[in-house]
């Protein structure tokens, strides 16, 4: 089984601070592999444990991706194919880049997260599948069975649960609950730097990115919490909380 996992690097959101006066985010923080990408990767590793085969991590991002992609290799991807001069992040341009990388090889299964924890746009599975002319199974909370040429999945939709099957190759997007991604051990992290990484430029792939929309503003909502810290004995603290509740309702 040859599996591609599309992964995304995102800002470490916990570290993103907001400028108090302007409400603008400060994006001068390190990047990391997105949570949902880890879920997709974990699912791929489980399939490889059962059926054997190869896992290729595919990604488009900034030059920092050369470092971030090691997280995917440490988790268990066998190799990676990445573009590191991709700074425009619209879903359509990301899908184009990922599809071009995917086209360079042939895969039985393409896995990704059902959305990313930063943009939460949820378009990548559909766009990649449409571009590659493949069937898709989105919002998968359980992969029931994968065999030669066929996959059966449980989909967790808004109002219903669905069991569906598809022929392979197929694009599958997974939910955050599908598994608990493994944390790489030190030896896996050390091994990761020896794994092969193919690094393409947009030019190598013959892609020119054009912007299809304009960001008019990107600001944090103006909520200013008092952030008053209360500590002490349970009984005393409970009294204070009751007092606040009494004032507020």
């Amino acid at each position, binding site marked *: 089984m040859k599996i591609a996992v599309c992964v995304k690097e995102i800002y470490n959101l916990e570290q993103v601070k907001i400028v108090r006066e302007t409400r603008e985010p400060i994006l001068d923080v390190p990047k990391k592999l997105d949570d949902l990408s880890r879920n997709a990767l974990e699912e791929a590793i489980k399939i490889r444990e059962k059926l054997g085969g190869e896992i290729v991590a595919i990604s488009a991002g900034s030059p920092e991706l050369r470092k971030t992609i090691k997280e995917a290799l440490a988790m268990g991807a066998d190799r990676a194919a990445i573009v590191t001069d991709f700074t425009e992040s619209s879903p359509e341009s990301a899908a184009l880049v990922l599809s071009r990388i995917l086209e360079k090889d042939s895969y039985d299964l393409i896995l990704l997260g059902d959305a990313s924890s930063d943009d939460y746009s949820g378009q990548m599975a559909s766009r990649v599948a449409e571009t590659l002319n493949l069937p898709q199974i989105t919002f998968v909370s359980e992969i029931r069975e994968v065999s030669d040429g066929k996959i059966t999945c449980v989909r967790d939709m808004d109002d219903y649960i669905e069991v569906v099957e598809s022929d392979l190759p197929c694009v599958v997007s997974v939910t955050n609950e599908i598994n608990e991604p493994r944390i790489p051990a030190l030896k896996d992290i050390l091994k990761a730097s020896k794994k092969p990484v193919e690094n393409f430029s947009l030019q190598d792939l013959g892609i020119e990115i054009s912007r299809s929309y304009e*960001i008019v503003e990107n600001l944090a909502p103006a909520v200013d919490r008092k952030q008053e810290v209360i500590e002490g004995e349970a009984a005393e603290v409970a009294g204070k909380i009751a007092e606040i509740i009494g004032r507020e309702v």
Partner: protein
Amino acid sequence: MKALVFAEKADHLNRISSKLKELGFEVHALSFAEVNADFLYLAGPKYDYASITAAIDMLSNEIRPDLVVFSSTKLGKEVSSRFAQRKNMTCITECLDLQLGDSSITVSRYSLGGKTVTKIRTHLPAVVALVADAIESKEQSFQMNVREFQIPDSPQIRTVSREEKRREAVGLKEADVIVVVGRGLRKEEDLKLVKELAKKLNAEIGCTRPLSHDYRWLPEERMIGLSGEKVSPKLLISIGVSGQIQHAVGIMNSKTVIAINTDENAPMKEHSDYFIVGDLYEILPELIKNL
């Protein structure tokens, strides 16, 4: 200006149609039920992306809409982006509002996991998926031309079974007081402590995603955050919740927030007016006694 709309839920469709009409669009709707529209294409229900995408594609070739609109449900996001890719168009999902400009639209959506709200302008034609609950609109009058429409049966995957989820009516949106519980709770039985507190305060119970989607201790309707409900009570009491942004975005519009957490450095602190450092198992019984 013409808009083509699809939503699998009639109430979502009605909300979105009214909004589009208010903005001056002639509204064409593909629907499984009788809804408000100038031109209604009434079809038997189908839930596979391939058939719905094909239907939208057919209708859009016929109608030539300036804007194609979906409800930002999971199905809506899946179909809107597959359709947009087929047409080589921009698609913006999870939109919280919609404004019409000069042959362009402007929408708002959360970015950075909910840390910020981004305003995005794109030229028409475009595809958007709107969060129906967030869209405000007044009632409008429509032409109501109805036509039966056959969605082409062209699935690319096989449906083995489909089971409706059990739904519970939850009054989170209207609640004045909400008690939110997170993974600080050690076991399901301990929910009775939270329920007792909620009862004393006449409050609704909300939760973080692990409690509803991983442990299934509470129904999904009670989950608050980026992928759940956005609430705006007068008072919200958050118990054993770390306050990661994907959750915190859902409580932003609360008037007052009290949080109880053992970790003085939990991100929840910056989302709280009163941040109580302490153990919920010690504080809640005392608090219940005090009320």
